[in-house]
């Protein structure tokens, strides 16, 4: 069993690398379409054309695009993400800082939504078909489909403007304490919680319903185990499998799809980094940001699959014939 598992993992990794390589090419090719040029983005629209040309030359941008790409790729293979055109500094610290910011926000959202979603899902499953189930499912579905900017606006109006309970923006003063940061993060995290709740609850509900009907649960009940123990030992463990998959796919979304929330709350995460880089045609920054999002997403999916394989023998048999 070990060896096919490793081989499978190797295959998946190779595919992931190929995907990232293609992604970098697509971004690079697409980047050529972005309006404006780098020198002008730095010097401003009214700059003298000679100054723009000189700056482009200094940055080495007056060479063929293919050469720029190969050079960048060569550096990347040596672990160097390159220099930002705009900041003329290494890209890595910028991306790292933005990623950490996004992870803070995503982490907080996860911490709130995972217990909430699982609890909701289990409650719905235990009352399957009754009003509790319908209420949770419908609320979940409705909340999930509301765009973040809409739920954010409602939350801002209620929590920040009317109740004055939370700060309206995620932009705390640089160097603020962890507590202040947390306070600023709650409001931006809530729209993500709202979006994810319905989804996680739904998955947990499905898993729980299935587990409740499974043979091992019936056996446990027949053995006379108390209901609480059955749910904890047998039902939850199995019900959480699909939930893990969901969490993994949502990680990709949380890291990269935060653009709206980041814009609304003026939060400098990876989404806003990518947007800014695209506007400034800062190609090394853009590539680094996008590849980071892609890599995080692929890694999350891989981890989820691996966890599933380890936890669920049925999957293993099915996947490695």
């Amino acid at each position, binding site marked *: 069993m070990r060896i096919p598992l490793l081989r499978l993992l190797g295959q998946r990794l190779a595919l992931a690398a190929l995907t990232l390589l293609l992604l970098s090419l697509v971004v690079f090719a697409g980047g050529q379409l972005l*309006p404006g040029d780098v020198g002008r983005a730095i010097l401003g629209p*009214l700059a*003298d054309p000679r*100054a723009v040309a000189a700056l482009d030359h200094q940055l080495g941008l007056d060479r063929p695009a293919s050469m720029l790409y190969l050079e960048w790729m060569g550096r990347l293979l040596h672990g160097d993400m390159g220099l930002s055109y705009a*900041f003329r500094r290494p890209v890595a610290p910028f991306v790292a800082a933005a990623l950490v910011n996004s992870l803070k926000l995503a982490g907080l959202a996860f911490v709130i939504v995972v217990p909430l979603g699982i609890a909701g899902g289990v409650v719905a499953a235990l009352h399957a078909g009754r009003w509790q189930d319908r209420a949770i499912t419908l609320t979940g579905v409705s909340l999930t489909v509301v765009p973040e900017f809409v739920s954010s606006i409602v939350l801002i109006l209620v929590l920040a403007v009317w109740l004055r309970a939370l*700060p309206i923006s995620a932009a705390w003063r*640089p160097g603020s304490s962890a507590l202040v940061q947390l306070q600023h993060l709650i409001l931006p995290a809530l729209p993500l919680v709202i979006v994810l709740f319905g989804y996680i609850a739904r998955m947990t509900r499905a898993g729980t319903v299935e587990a409740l009907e499974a043979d091992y649960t019936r056996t446990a009940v027949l053995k006379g185990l108390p209901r609480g123990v059955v749910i904890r030992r047998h039902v939850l463990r199995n019900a959480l499998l699909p939930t893990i998959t969901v969490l993994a796919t949502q990680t990709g979304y949380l890291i990269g799809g935060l653009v709206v929330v980041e814009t609304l709350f003026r939060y400098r995460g990876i989404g806003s980094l990518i947007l800014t880089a695209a506007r400034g045609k800062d190609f090394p920054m853009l590539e680094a940001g996008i590849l980071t999002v892609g890599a995080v997403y692929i890694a999350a999916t891989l981890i989820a699959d691996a966890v599933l394989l380890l936890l669920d023998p049925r999957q293993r048999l099915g996947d490695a014939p």
Partner: protein
Amino acid sequence: MGQHRDRTAAAGGLSRRDLLARTGAGGIAGVLGAARPARAAGRPGATIRVAAAVPAGAIDPVTVADIGGLVLLQQTGEFLVYDAPDLTLRPMLALSWTPNPKGDVWTFRLRQGVKFHSGGTMVADDVVATMDRLADPKNGSNALSVFKGVLSPGGTRKVDDHTVAFHLDRPVGHFPYYVSSDNYNAIILPASYKGDFEKTFDGTGPFRLARYTPNAGASFVANREWWGGRALPARVEFGLYADQQSQILAMQGQQVDVMQQLTVQGGQALLNNPDVRLIKLRSSIHRQVHMRCDTGPFADKRVRQALALTLDRPALVAGLFHGLSDLGNDSPFAPVYPSTDHSVPQRGKDIARAKLLMAAAGHAHGFTVTLTTERLQEIPDYAVLIRNAAKQIGITVNLKVETQAAYYGAAKFGQSDWLDSALGITDYGHRGVPDALLSATLGSDGPWNAAHFRNPAYDRLVGDYVATTGLAAQRSIAGRIEALLLDETPVIFAYFYNYLIATGADVRGVEGTAISQLFLQSASIG
């Protein structure tokens, strides 16, 4: 850059200093420390916390082009001349400036005993190297658009260690503005500058760098060796914010004492806030609504006049700026410029006349046109207002609102929505004198001439204006330019809004310019 004068002069009374500097009889204004604003009796030792825009790129005096970058530059760096908020020039690193009779050689006497933060003494060689660096097309210098046709590499020459002569390509009566704080790139750097400003922020100013973290913040401490004595605050801390809204929130939360720039749009929360004091600077910040004079319906000047007549400017100023704005009269001569001729009648709203003009031009039933513009501050709203106004005379305006990058495009004719659109709105920042606006945006071969306006009489008048000295003579030429533009109306200038700086109610001594600079050496709290 710009014309040197102040409002006392505009009001009719020329100060002695003003008169002497302008006529070239000698800048005897070199009182030590004159660059400091009037001293408020503030408590020393404060830490001033500033909310500023996050710089768009590397902090390098040669290339900086955004307000986030330029405000950081001038915390440690200084200029030869300071263009004060009232548009008067005051000595900074230069003590005086005199032109030759023709006006094409300007001699600047430098302040002595000025030390760079890195230890060296500032001498003429440093000034020569700085100006040559900025004037050299090979350096990607953002000052090139100011110096083009005025100052070339090699034009700046050392006379002795404390005297520099600028040999210009053509006479420019008001050259000192071109090397003043108005030209925000013209920070005097050591001759040995290697392009690594960001490491130490090496300059001569009242503050020196403590720490700079890109995208986050910068802190500065008082420079004990400053030629002007010692700054009042012990420390200045800049927090860098991605947009105005987060700065406003920081102000409301009293996390900062000074906010670099407040715009009325979205700034409502601070406008009537008793905890906030607004510093209001009249300025020449404006939007140009260009109409293509060479093709399409706007080739007929009656149509251009008609569109200009549809705007209710006082209502615009009230609605978009809560009245914190001057009215524009369809020329670059902002009311704040001393040389502006105020006797030219102000254009107002006159739909009846506009309809007559449309009919006379053969457009009694109107036409359809696309208004192209950029997403910036109040501009999209202004575009909507123009659309509604134009509807009154049958012109159907479709809006195309783009990102700045898309709007400006390659900034070349034929490759730019800005320069190629039939009708567009473009943002222009504050300038101490209208010289660049007059020639670049409306001159026949102007690189920013989106209206494609070609008028030899206008070109001659502008040439005369730039070369002329003396306020009365300038104002008379200005009046003729204003009248000509009002008639031709290649561009609608509807307003010149005030530049607003927000500070805490207990903050004193903050001085700033409409270019977005902040001079904090006299600031105090409480």
